[in-house]
């Protein structure tokens, strides 16, 4: 059946090309749907998916169908099913809470690909046409952390005191995606400033500008010399700009609104993933991974331009660290670089409840060859342990 649909699709594309007399891209004739939680115009998170989708559409020529403002409920399933009914070949959803509804829709349309970013169930759901995807953003966070460490060193010199090496982090929820993000950022910073400590406070919202700004101001008042965040608004960067505190952003540059304090930002570029899915759909020989992880290598994990506020030589140093990550001589979650409860990390101390919480098969191990295997067995981040040096504020 899958083969038949592909033959029909290929014939349709050939007829289309013959009719127009020109090529519009390798995926012309394909219909690809994107389901976004919020309008792209009002959410940096959804905009990131949207921008990558539009860039892929421009290059590959597929018909883009974008549904915005789809809540994490049965409307997601209805939307996905309606897209499939109207001829979409591939449907992608962007929010964690969409996953159960995408799986339900996938069961009804076995010839359509249903892809879901940030989810955890593809490998265990037993639905052939349902896939998860994420990126090794912890590498991007680590690199941004290195840039932050260099800035602290520039500000306070090589003999930086414990007080001067204190940073803050505004988190959304105490969830693995956020925890993995701030831990890798902290480890990047710590690789440059060995005595660095960090305070984290959660806003319990993905987008709450007032709360994010208030939390950032609290962290600054408690002595944080540099801030980063995993939250979607301009709240934390604005608080930093007002206080003159350097800020490392996420999902995109905040240079326009915070010209004096923005350093750099890490982000996921989803365009390579969209292209990969389309390639796998169109090419009989290729198989789409149940859990796809975009990396620095695939162009999925990126840093924005380094601003003039960064320490001199930051770009070159970060490039060097990036190469080490690529060739495997450096690992973000190297067990020699952090401790948990005063002791070196062990399998038991890094993997509590993960099998239950993140749908890993029994017997999965996370520590191997001296480092934690983040986004290895599942695309979505799983590192959710509080390491020494990081204090969670209640």
């Amino acid at each position: 059946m899958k083969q038949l649909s592909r033959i029909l699709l290929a014939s349709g594309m050939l007829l289309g090309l013959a009719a127009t007399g020109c090529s519009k891209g390798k995926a012309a004739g394909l219909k690809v749907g994107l389901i976004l939680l919020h309008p792209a115009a009002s959410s940096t998170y959804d905009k990131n998916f949207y921008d990558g989708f539009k860039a892929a559409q421009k290059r590959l020529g597929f018909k883009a169908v974008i549904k915005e403002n789809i809540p994490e409920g049965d409307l997601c399933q209805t939307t996905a099913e309606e897209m499939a009914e109207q001829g979409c070949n591939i449907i992608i959803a962007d929010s964690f809470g969409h996953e159960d509804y995408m799986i339900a829709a996938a069961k009804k349309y076995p010839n359509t690909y249903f892809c879901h970013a940030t989810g955890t169930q593809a490998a265990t759901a037993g639905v052939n046409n349902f896939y998860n995807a994420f990126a090794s953003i912890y590498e991007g966070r680590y690199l941004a952390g290195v840039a932050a460490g260099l800035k602290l060193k520039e500000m306070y010199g090589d003999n930086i005191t414990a007080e001067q090496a204190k940073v803050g982090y505004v988190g959304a929820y105490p969830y693995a995606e956020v925890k993995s993000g701030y831990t890798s950022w902290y480890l990047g910073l710590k690789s440059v400033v060995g005595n660095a400590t960090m305070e984290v406070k959660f806003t319990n919202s993905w987008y709450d500008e007032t709360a994010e700004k208030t939390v950032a101001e609290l962290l600054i008042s408690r002595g944080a010399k540099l801030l980063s965040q995993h939250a979607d608004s301009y709240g934390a960067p604005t608080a930093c700009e007002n206080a003159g505190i350097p800020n490392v952003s996420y999902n995109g540059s905040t240079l326009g609104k915070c010209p004096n304090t923005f350093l750099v930002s890490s982000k996921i570029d989803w365009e390579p993933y969209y292209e990969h899915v389309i390639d796998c759909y169109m090419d009989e020989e290729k198989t789409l991974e149940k859990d796809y992880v975009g990396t620095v290598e695939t162009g999925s994990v990126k840093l924005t331009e380094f601003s003039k506020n960064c320490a001199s030589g930051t770009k070159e140093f970060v490039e060097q660290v990036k190469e080490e990550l690529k060739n495997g001589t450096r690992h973000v979650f190297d067990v020699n670089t952090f401790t948990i409860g005063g002791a070196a990390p062990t399998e038991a101390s890094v993997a509590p409840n993960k099998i239950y919480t993140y749908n890993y098969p029994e017997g999965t191990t996370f520590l191997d060859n001296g480092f934690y295997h983040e986004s290895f067995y599942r695309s979505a981040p799983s590192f959710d342990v509080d390491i020494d040096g990081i204090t969670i504020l209640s």
Partner: protein
Amino acid sequence: MKKDRERIIRISRRTNLKWWQKILIKAIFVLVAFLMCGVISSLVSPGSFFDFYEYMFNGTFYNTKIFVNLLWQAGLLFVIAIALTPAFKMKFWNIGAEGQCLMGGLGALIGLKFIAPFVPNIIALCIEFLLAAIFACSWAVIPAIFKAYFNTNETLFTLMMNYIAMGIVAACVVAWSTSGSSVLGVVNNVNHEGWLPFVESFGNSYIFNILIIIGASIVIFLYLGFSQHGYELQVVGGSRNTAKYLGINVKSVIIRTMLLSGLICSVAGFLMVVGASHSINETLVNGRGFTAILVSWLGEFNVPTMAIYSFLVSFVSIGSSNAAAWIGYSSTVSNVLTGLFFLLIISSTFFVNFRVHIKLPKRKKNEETAISSKEGA
């Protein structure tokens, strides 16, 4: 000297409009609204005038499955509108349907999550509905008690209750979420304990939900039009003093009517949780509680008319959203189109109730003479 000025536009109240003339005026405005939607679409995306209508119909009438989805969305809006109507007839401005439905959904979810796995399905469904009713009725009756005994402003009170309900649901989801992500996920996803039975028809399972909504609307139609309670709440709405003189206990009518509103909201919350999402978050009702206020008003508190408006509003909203997705412009444009539709329908009620006289000013006699003499020369 007082200058004698003649008005160009004059408005007078209509008194003798026939029923078919009212329908004709409203139908013309609906058609104008559809036409304007196409025009705006082609302004946003040049050349999309006919595509807009094609995708609008594809998103709503493409096949029976998609049409049943439209009926479900319209039905949900309709049941919330009829929940508001008894209170509105009583001139109790309940704008808290969003929160009342959400609390009903929370009650049903508690039954679904904590009781359904341990009891037979039919008992689970009864308990879920009972909990939904208790939660939604409590949320509705609190402002009613304050209104009845302390004459508080029910508009502000019910509005405030919406936000408290959202906060409670958000807090519950954070507490119950196992991953810490604030996403509850589908509850009882493996064995479907406590779910409304799937009646797979036309490729989806909303038929059962739609039948429940039809049943609830018939009950409300009879209650409002043919019961003593329905008569009493109209009298209270007309004049509280008259109601008192007639021996009607106004306080009791206010509380009883709001309990009824809460009960119907609990049907909506129950169906959204147990019959559709099988989960909850603070956006479960998704603004329908506010849109339903407009539907209730536009339908002039008449159950069949509200059904028509619920259908039309859902058709425009879902259809224009589908057009935006396939033509390629932002969903905010489809929101504008739905808003425009509302605006024009509201405008139509003005022309149903009032007549506009336009009288062009006559040229003065001496001016006319001057002109004619010039022409003669």
